């Protein structure tokens, strides 16, 4: 106390009033504001990214749900389709799609004439505005309705993808200079036919329900069959991952003694949840395809791989749900004479069911969007064209899956497929959003607080 002496040099800045802020305080407050602004900026960046992503997806993808159609009256000439006039189905079948091309060409020229469009193009070039699948569509109709031969029938053909792109603004007159699929003269005809109402854009259900098409016909490609592939995979995942996951969680949570084996299993599950998904693909390729000789590209194999991948997720959420059931429930059940097994299966499990279900749905949603392991077991690279008819066929015949189909489209050279890839993402996200919403609703509705 004695050596206290006022310092000889006074402080450089003297605080004279409490009401004015010193420089140091100002600096500290500015720092504070800056720090807070960084936080706000970070959140804004995150949300902005989400917004950009959503806007991109919907901006680029909604076009896929609309398609350009050409409505034509086609005269089903008897002289071309059934020369004998006997309506013998075998004779009619003998005529290949080539034989139908003149009918389409004729119908196109007739439409041009009827609407008074002035053009120097030949009828073949005019018919080039239609999808390459138009003749097949016509042939299928005639084979199904041979009695219609000789009549004039109205058809709605898909327009080829450049015409579709032109109507949607993807293809412009500048961009087609070196394009051998379409010419500026053809686009003039398109303009005239749009004005006449022959060519129009409308909702395309085939994009949702149809099958993939070859890379020559982007206008005909659809998600339907790959959706079925995903559906069968999810069936496998649900049938295997839910019972196995719940059984494993019940054991670990309710019965397992505390010893090193249990520890190993628990550490193992935590680590499996973080193994990259592609490693599961390698496992599937090595074990299910190379070793067990299950068919390549089959949804069964995809489902098995995704089951292994989803199991840790389901186990972790099921254990959390079981843990949330208070011990008093178990004690009460044991107190009235139930066995340990009965207390778990009759009392704890039903109370944990909403939580288990929520976790399962979230696990399924995760599996539905997974692509990487599917690449390795061959669920890409071919055209999934036929919808499976039976459960066995659905599980074993080669198919694609929604994300794999999107990847396949993104790889193709024709930009018309990009629009379909974005459209496919919209469908995939709709499924995911629905599943997650159901999970949230289930949790809100049935969650109990003890």
């Amino acid at each position, binding site marked *: 106390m004695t050596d206290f002496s006022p310092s000889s040099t006074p402080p450089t800045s003297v605080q004279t009033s409490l009401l004015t802020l010193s420089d140091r305080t100002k600096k500290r407050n500015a720092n504070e504001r800056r720090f807070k602004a*960084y936080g706000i900026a970070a*959140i804004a960046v995150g949300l902005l*990214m989400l917004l950009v992503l959503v806007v991109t997806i919907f901006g680029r993808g909604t076009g896929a749900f609309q398609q350009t159609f050409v409505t034509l009256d086609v005269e089903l000439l008897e002289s071309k389709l059934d020369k004998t006039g006997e309506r013998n189905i075998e004779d009619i079948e003998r005529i290949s799609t080539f034989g139908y091309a003149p009918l389409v060409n004729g119908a196109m020229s007739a439409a041009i004439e009827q609407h008074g469009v002035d053009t120097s193009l030949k009828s073949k070039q005019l018919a080039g505005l239609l999808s390459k699948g138009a003749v097949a569509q016509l042939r299928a109709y005639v084979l199904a309705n041979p009695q219609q031969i000789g009549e004039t029938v109205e058809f709605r053909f898909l327009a080829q993808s450049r015409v579709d792109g032109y109507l949607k603004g993807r293809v412009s007159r500048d961009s087609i200079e070196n394009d051998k699929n379409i010419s500026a003269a053809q686009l003039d005809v398109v303009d005239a036919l749009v004005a006449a109402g022959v060519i129009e854009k409308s909702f395309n259900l085939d994009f949702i329900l149809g099958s993939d098409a070859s890379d020559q016909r982007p206008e005909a490609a659809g998600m339907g069959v790959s959706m079925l592939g995903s559906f069968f995979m999810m069936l496998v995942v649900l049938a295997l991952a839910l*019972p*196995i996951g719940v059984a494993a969680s019940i054991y670990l949570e309710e019965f397992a003694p505390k010893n090193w084996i249990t520890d190993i299993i628990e550490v193992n*599950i935590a680590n*499996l949840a973080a193994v990259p998904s592609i490693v599961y693909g390698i496992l599937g390729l090595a*074990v299910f395809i190379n070793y067990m*000789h299950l068919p390549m590209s089959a949804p069964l194999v995809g489902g098995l791989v995704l089951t292994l991948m989803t199991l840790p997720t389901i186990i972790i959420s099921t254990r959390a749900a079981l843990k949330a059931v208070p011990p008093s429930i178990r004690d009460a059940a044991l107190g009235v004479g139930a066995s340990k097994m009965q207390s778990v299966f009759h009392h704890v499990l039903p109370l944990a069911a909403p939580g288990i279900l929520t976790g399962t749905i979230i696990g399924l949603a995760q599996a539905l969007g997974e692509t990487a392991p599917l690449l390795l077991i061959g669920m890409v690279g071919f055209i999934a064209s036929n919808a499976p008819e039976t459960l066995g066929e659905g599980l074993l015949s080669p198919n694609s899956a929604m994300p794999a189909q999107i990847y396949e489209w993104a790889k193709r050279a024709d930009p018309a497929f990009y629009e379909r890839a974005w459209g496919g993402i919209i469908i995939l996200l709709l499924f*995911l959003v629905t599943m997650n919403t159901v999970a949230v609703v289930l949790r809100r509705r049935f969650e109990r607080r003890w």
Partner: protein
Amino acid sequence: MPIFWLIVILLALTACGYWFGRSRALASANGNPRELHSLPVYYGANVAMSIAIPALMTLAIWLLVQPMVIESRVSASLPSEVIPENTSIGLIMGDVRRLSDGLDEVVAQGFLDAKQALDLNSETTDIRATLGEVGVALGSDVRPEVLAAAQQYRQLSATGGRAMTLVCLFLALGGLVLSLRKTNKTFRARNVVERGILALLVLAASLAILTTVGIVFSMLFETINFFGLHAWRDFFFGTTWAPNFRGDSELSMLPLLWGTLYISAIALLVAVPVGLFAAIYLSEYAGSTVRSFAKPLLEILAGIPTIVYGLFALLTVGPLLLKLFGQGEEGLLGLTWMSGATSVLTAGVVMGIMLIPFVSSLSDDIINAVPQALRDGSLGLGATKSETIRQVVLPAALPGIVGAILLAASRAIGETMIVVMGAGAIAKFSANPFESMTTITTRVVSQLTGDTDFASPETLVAFALGLSLFVLTLGLNVLALYIVRKYREQYD
């Protein structure tokens, strides 16, 4: 008999067994359930489990083991001179398997009956053409030794299949008879059934271990094969990645590892600051309204499938970056740094966006776990909120945050779709983020898709890469969990 029908029969037997067991127990107690030791359902379940569990398990194990046994017997009987220079036994066995599957298909479609198929002679019939008719394509003409091996393969499979059916049915019927004989009113059915259920639960839990073992062994075997064909020194320490399907490839991991780490580093450079500041703001500043909408919205980013990010990189971010940094005079900045849409930067930025919620929600939890007393103490001493966070909260949460970043890094290293679509396919050492580079996961995908030949080092290298990836991510995860756990003990 197809396995499907075998399973149906077993299940039908099980259902019958349940009903028999239940009614027999009731009959032994003269229809009065009170005289039974256990509830009637337990007697039924006991019989059902005695039928189904041994039979189905034998079926599963048989299906796993049979191919292995047959394969080893057939390959042992192949004379060694059949194997030409520089191919392996695995290649020949592939032919044998394809041929025998093809012959089965021929019989199934009715081109030949079973006896004709067994008497086939490669000199008198053109087997390749016959198989072609049913849609089975063979790479080369069939040699007599291979045909003999294929016939042996078919015979062994057929015998094995018959034996399996008989054994399974025998086990099921045996289980039915034995358990029915034990069923009477004093039998302690519940205890037996519960012990059985417990065993099933243990089995389900050990499937997790089985998966890990499966992952490690499936990759380990092929990796060992790979190191038999290719020097391990070159794989780990070489500097060139140049697979060449005529052989003589240079396959080393280092350029791929460099690409992987570079892209992951850029991703973390994007994700860590944004995620960390978002977490700090959400946990320390934001009111409950902001928190309740911003947090779930950010977490949506984590729920979006990676294929969507991949497409976003390929079709949106890549072209945008190209417009900014490439295309010279036509571009926005007049730069010519970038020559294509795929680059390290493209993949890194998009992956960073994906990882934002991962970093933010993990760090959010960790920051929230810091005891309030520390904050109160610091604020009480006159520190501003940001000073408290920077000098008290963050140092306290640091181990946890490091753990979170390590987990995010392991995610980035193992991510596949974004790099497959956004990073490119050229393996090289370069520090230029505008160049396209390739990663471990991309190469795994490209070496294992399409036609794969499991005897060539170009295919097998994918397993070595996969194993390295597994070890790398596992190491990061274990390290992260260790750090997080250690940190947690300080406050609990």
